[in-house]
């Protein structure tokens, strides 16, 4: 069976710096896959490469078997890929509601359909409904995160990519964000989740890849990775798993 997302031998470089080194991963339809690793592991670069923002030096990104080479970022949104970046990047000078409507830019919807979809997001994040008329720049960090996720969902993505959704958020807000992620997972959305908070990621993911220096060094279920102690060793350097690095 063709995976929903297939990354094959992808390399990405920024000048002389190699951010991804012949990396391969996959995600089945409806699966939640976490990418765990320290800063500089290449997690965000991988998401940006899938979104079409950074070019591949080699390799291929396939969505439902289709090679996305040559597809611009906005076209990839139309194909069902949405990214919530680490920086959230809500449009600060637009209202909360306008930010949501922008998210549906690739869909041909009537005003009533757009409103219905926005109401669905408000149901997922009731806090946004209270702030629907506020300028996004005046929202709290947690509300901006919810808005960034809601905006991405307005595109009705088959594949949702979340980059550090808990970064800088209070625990109670993180709980709300992860509750929403769990709901999306249960609804059958394929999710690629980048997270340094491995415990949080493991609470929702089906499978995880452990990354270091632009490569996948381990793969498995949350339970198996936890049992092996690999996450601790990579994130906190308690024992270097150098022997497992690919050439």
């Amino acid at each position, binding site marked *: 069976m063709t995976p929903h997302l297939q990354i094959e031998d992808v390399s990405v470089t920024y000048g002389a710096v190699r951010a991804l080194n012949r990396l391969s991963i996959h995600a089945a339809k409806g699966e939640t896959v976490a990418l765990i690793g320290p800063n500089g592991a290449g997690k965000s670069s991988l998401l940006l490469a899938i979104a079409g923002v950074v070019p591949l030096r080699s390799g291929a990104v396939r969505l439902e078997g289709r090679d996305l080479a040559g597809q611009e970022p906005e076209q990839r*949104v139309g194909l069902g890929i949405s990214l919530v970046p680490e920086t959230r990047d809500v449009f600060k000078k637009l209202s909360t509601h306008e930010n949501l409507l*922008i998210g549906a*830019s690739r869909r041909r919807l009537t005003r009533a359909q757009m409103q219905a979809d926005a109401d669905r997001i408000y149901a997922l994040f009731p806090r946004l409904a209270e702030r629907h008329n506020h300028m996004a720049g005046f929202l709290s960090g947690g509300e901006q995160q919810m808005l960034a996720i809601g905006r991405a969902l307005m*595109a009705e993505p088959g594949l949702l990519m979340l980059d550090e959704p808990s970064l800088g958020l209070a625990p109670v807000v993180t709980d709300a964000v992860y509750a929403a992620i769990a709901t999306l997972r249960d609804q059958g959305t394929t999710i690629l989740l980048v997270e340094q908070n491995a415990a949080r990621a493991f609470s929702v993911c089906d499978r995880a890849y452990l990354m270091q220096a632009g490569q996948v060094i381990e793969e498995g279920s949350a339970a198996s990775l936890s049992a092996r102690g690999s996450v601790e060793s990579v994130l906190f350097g308690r024992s270097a798993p150098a022997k497992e690095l690919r050439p």
Partner: protein
Amino acid sequence: MTLLQMLIDAASVGGLYALTAIGIGLIFGVIGLVNFAYGEYIMVGAYVLLLSASLYWPFAIAAVLVFVVLFALASDYLVFRQVRRAPPETLMIVSFGLSFMIQHIWVVMFGSLTKTVNFLPAINRSVEIAGLRIAGVSLLQIAATVVLTTVLALFIKYTRIGYQMRAVSENPRMARLVGVNSNRVIAVAFAISAVLAVTVTVLFVAQTGSMTPFFGVSLTMIGFVATVIGGMGSLPGCALGGFLVGAVTTILQMVLPPHLQPFREAFVFTSVILMLLVRPQGLIAVRSAWERV
């Protein structure tokens, strides 16, 4: 001349400048391009009007509209899109180059001498309202400015493409990442700025009846000055700046002695420099969503 008469004259002249400034300000707001070739949209429109003046006037205006909109879209597609990611100063130099190129192509095609056309002479007739004699074209200039500025503000605030424009203006990369076709949005901005240019063309040619391949330059300079005075990227600021420059120009025309009147523009630009020394960010600094773009 009464104060009211002077205000109407100032609003009329200022309206033309305001439309020019909004056309420049719109493109700057969306992609950060100071488009010095904007005056050439006005200029080429005037020559299309010259060639189509024998047609029934709505057809002549339609011909200008179609040509100038296509011309503006072509300038974006063929020139500005190729340097979209370049620094702002590069974009500005490119627009200078495009402006010079178009002017000289028009010199080759039409010569550098002034051409005249008698377009819609009826609107130059004066009408008397409450004891004031006002040229019909002045009323049209004021009305066109008010209507177009209002429609544009509503368009940007309430339509789908309007908030896409604001999104591209604020964060072009993220706009693409949420699926906004930024090239299409920018093309719409160019088309709208072309419609504003056509309005200026028609009103200017109807009023003066003359044109040269270089007449767009002075309008662009004044429009640019109005944009800077109002606050770069702020549409209300552009409109306000245009009206202010129009008011200063009209007042100077009245108060300057005849031997100083040829230097009127020097006085206008001196007042601009003085104003910017006091308020370098312009009168309306861009702070919020509906002001930018």
